[in-house]
């Protein structure tokens, strides 16, 4: 590669990096006279046209991003077998290297780097681009310590290949969100998760989840709580750790609602008034922890608000159990134990609780007002109301209480009611421009969407490309209740070309008008059997399927080939014949002129009139030319008065 010129303008100078699927070279752009980085894909697209298109689309969409902390993409190209990206050349190193050399970083520096990264991702998200593979290997740091993110969307586009991959070539899964590990679509929230992991690594110099194989790491992302950075580095403020915990919540709904929110948090995270912040905890909610919505990136409800309302179920426990709180099953266990102890207490010392307790009534399914009054009738106080999505109960109905129905509680204790705001909606992604295929259908069906039979329309767009979707992109919908109708390009309209042979020019015009083919007479030539003005041949075979408007060239007959007119000469001796009454040997007297008439029957003359008349006074030779067309028969007569001196019939083919 070194010394080679790619795309006619980039001279490869030296290698500067290598990934599982690509190599990066420093190159010089001889047209703009500047250094660039060229990423050459180590990938054979030969049989993967879809993948190639996807890669190019992702790469092209990333060229639209301009941000001080995003590596500029200048060009996407292919040169024979090579597929490459031309990018801004950053003199420096990857953030991974930097962490390996300098980690763990000071908190101030880590926060400064995070602000740059988060602002870059915010810019991409505002442009509708999800990175999907944020990791320090994809982040470059220049000599001044500023970072720039690269490889938007590309790595993941490439991983969609059908070819089997071994451990040694699959990318790192250390930064992969739980929903991505599960195979769900990467969303803006997935980028937030990865940013959280990067922040962890900056602060500790280590990865939160490590294991031998990719799948073991993925399982940890799915199952284990993010470890505390304060455990190893107690000097890190809780407010800083909270950013990591919130960004890496297993359930995307509990993460920052947007990178903007994360950015705002990072702006104040080191301010003195946040020194005494509480540790971020995820509210205990059975429904929530089970369902991890993979597709959502814009839930309407503000969960961060909600987290302040809901009281953790487990009261602040004794110090030594603090460590254990990290795992929900254990919390559930602890709760169950408490309940069991409570139950035992109730059984053995009923008098302790006796008159002052009551059972929480069942209010699930009731309207909010009814539920509140029923609870109050039973002596409970409704202090908190939480609004949230419910799959089962329509908006306005209570779908859950805490404590739940039939639990024995003291009269006058507080009950939290959960009021449905309807089914969870999802913002519909824009699929226009993508290919309509099984992948997209399976993917959307996986979220409960119904996919209608697509409407195929003829269009200039490539066949299979989605032209329109209903509902429109950006609409908030409930997947189970939504049928998506795609309008898909059927490519250009095709039509069967008729056999045009023997069409007259008028018929051709009529056919061109009806068929919308562009029919052009390109040549006229003689033909033995096709009559003049009729079509002899067409350059596109009859019955072939052609795009409407295609050019069809035809050749029209000029009729039979005409052979040249033959001029057939005959030399005729015309004897002079003296008159009978003259003296034969009267040589002195002048001979009497005799009139000779020549009649010709040929292509130019008829026998009705003599062609020529002249007089002779002696024997004369004369050349008579008969002009004949192909197949014609002609004749001539030489007459003296009414006497025929010579005559001959001549055929075209004579001689």
């Amino acid at each position, binding site marked *: 590669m070194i010394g080679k010129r790619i795309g006619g303008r980039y001279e490869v100078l030296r290698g500067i990096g290598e990934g599982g699927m690509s190599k990066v070279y420093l190159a010089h752009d001889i047209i703009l006279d500047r250094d660039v980085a060229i990423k050459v894909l180590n990938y054979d697209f030969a*049989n993967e046209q879809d993948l190639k298109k996807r890669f190019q689309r992702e790469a092209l969409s990333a060229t639209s991003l301009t941000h001080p902390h995003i590596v500029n993409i200048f060009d996407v190209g292919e040169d024979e077998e090579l597929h490459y990206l031309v990018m801004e050349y950053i003199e420096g190193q990857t953030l991974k290297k930097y962490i390996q050399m300098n980690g763990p970083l000071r908190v101030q520096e880590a926060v400064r780097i995070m602000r740059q990264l988060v602002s870059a991702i915010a810019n991409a998200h505002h442009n509708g681009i999800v990175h999907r593979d944020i990791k320090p290997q994809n982040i470059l740091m220049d000599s001044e310590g500023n970072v720039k993110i690269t490889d938007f969307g590309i790595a993941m586009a490439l991983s969609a290949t*059908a070819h089997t991959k071994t*451990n040694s070539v699959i990318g790192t899964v250390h930064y992969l969100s739980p929903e991505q590990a*599960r*195979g769900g679509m990467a969303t803006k929230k997935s980028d937030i998760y990865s940013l959280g992991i990067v922040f962890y690594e900056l602060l500790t110099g280590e990865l939160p989840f490590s294991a031998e*194989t990719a799948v073991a790491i993925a*399982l940890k992302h799915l199952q284990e709580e993010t470890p505390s950075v304060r455990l190893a580095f107690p000097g890190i403020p809780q407010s800083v750790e909270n950013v990591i915990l919130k960004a890496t919540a297993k359930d995307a709904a509990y993460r920052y609602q947007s990178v903007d929110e994360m950015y705002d948090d990072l702006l104040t995270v080191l301010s003195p008034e946040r020194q005494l912040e509480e540790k971020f905890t995820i509210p205990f909610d059975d429904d929530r922890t089970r369902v991890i919505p993979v597709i959502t990136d814009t839930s309407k409800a503000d969960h961060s608000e909600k987290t302040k309302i809901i009281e953790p179920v487990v009261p602040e426990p004794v110090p030594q159990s603090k460590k254990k709180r990290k795992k929900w099953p254990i919390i559930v266990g602890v709760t169950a134990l408490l309940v069991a102890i409570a139950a035992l207490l109730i059984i053995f010392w009923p008098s302790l609780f006796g008159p002052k307790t009551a059972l929480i009534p069942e209010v699930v399914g009731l309207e909010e007002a009814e539920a509140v009054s029923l609870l109050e009738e039973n002596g409970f106080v409704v202090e908190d109301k939480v609004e949230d999505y419910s799959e089962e109960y329509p908006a306005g109905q209570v779908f859950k209480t805490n404590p739940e129905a039939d639990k024995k509680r003291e009269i006058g204790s507080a009950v939290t009611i959960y009021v449905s705001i309807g089914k969870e909606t999802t913002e519909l992604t824009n699929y226009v421009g993508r290919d309509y295929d099984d992948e997209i259908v*399976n993917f959307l069906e*996986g979220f409960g969407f119904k996919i209608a039979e697509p409407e195929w329309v003829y269009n200039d767009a490539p066949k299979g490309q989605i032209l329109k979707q209903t509902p429109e992109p950006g609409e908030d919908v409930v997947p189970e209740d939504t049928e998506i109708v795609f309008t898909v390009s059927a490519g250009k309209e095709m039509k069967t070309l008729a056999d045009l042979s023997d069409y007259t020019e008028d018929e051709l015009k009529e056919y061109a008008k009806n068929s919308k083919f562009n029919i052009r007479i390109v040549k006229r030539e003689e033909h033995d059997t096709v009559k003049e003005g009729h079509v002899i041949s067409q350059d596109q075979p009859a019955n072939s399927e052609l795009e409407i408007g295609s050019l069809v060239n035809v050749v029209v007959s000029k009729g039979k080939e005409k052979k040249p007119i033959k001029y057939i000469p005959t030399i005729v001796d015309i004897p002079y014949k003296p008159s009978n009454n003259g003296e034969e040997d009267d040589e002195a007297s002048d001979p009497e002129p005799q009139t000779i008439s020549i009649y010709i029957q040929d292509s130019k003359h008829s026998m009705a009139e003599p062609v020529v008349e002249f007089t002779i006074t002696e024997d004369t030779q004369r050349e008579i030319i008969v002009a004949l067309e192909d197949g014609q028969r002609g004749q001539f007569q030489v007459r003296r008065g009414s006497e025929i001196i010579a005559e001959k019939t001549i055929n075209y083919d004579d001689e």
Partner: protein
Amino acid sequence: MLRFEVVTDIGKKRTVNEDSAAVFAIQDGPTLAVVADGMGGHRGGDYASSTAVRILGEQFMKVDGPSSMEEEDWKEWLLETVLHVNRTLFDVAESDDEYKGMGTTLDAVLLYGNKGLVTHIGDSRVYTINRNEILQITKDHSFVNILLDSGEITEEEAARHPQRNWIMRAVGSEKSIMPDFYQIQLDEQTYVLICTDGLSNKVDNEQIQAIVTSDGDLHDKAVKLVELANELGGEDNISVILANSSASEVSQQ
């Protein structure tokens, strides 16, 4: 009498057949059936699978006193040979850029008497099939299969997981590997099927069972399996070894 059929097919979309499959038989001794699905690199996949099959075959034919070997001896022999293949491929991949990232699945089934010893790495599969049931003997060493086993994802999620092509164990891609071993019992009505994912991703278990247990000749069945995978898309290479211990004895009864 052991009868077997080997069919390997490039499929309908690929330009290279990276699968290799072969059966090696020692006179009056055991038979070794090997299927390998190679992957990675420009030339690596084809090289990895064919080299694995070749080395296994060569080593097998050189075994000293095969008739005196017990099951434990064979197991040891298989392990050693597979590790040897792994080292060979790994060294080539390390030293030559053209072969970087290559690897291969490997399923080697040693058949002797009415028993079978299965060595397995990757996501090719070994099944035993009779009229009553079709049993998948091997467990895929794939990313999604492990997630599925752990209960983190459902069958449906696994089926459309974007990383369903990731395998966690392959011969030649890592310095050290450990194959899985399984024992199988055979009888006259039971067939052994060894196949690459080109078949198992396309044709479901019921269809495989129906074809394998239909009346007809072993060769036709093997060909029919491959044809069906091709009809259903043929996106990948397809290899099948179908073996049955005593078709001829059945007909004599």
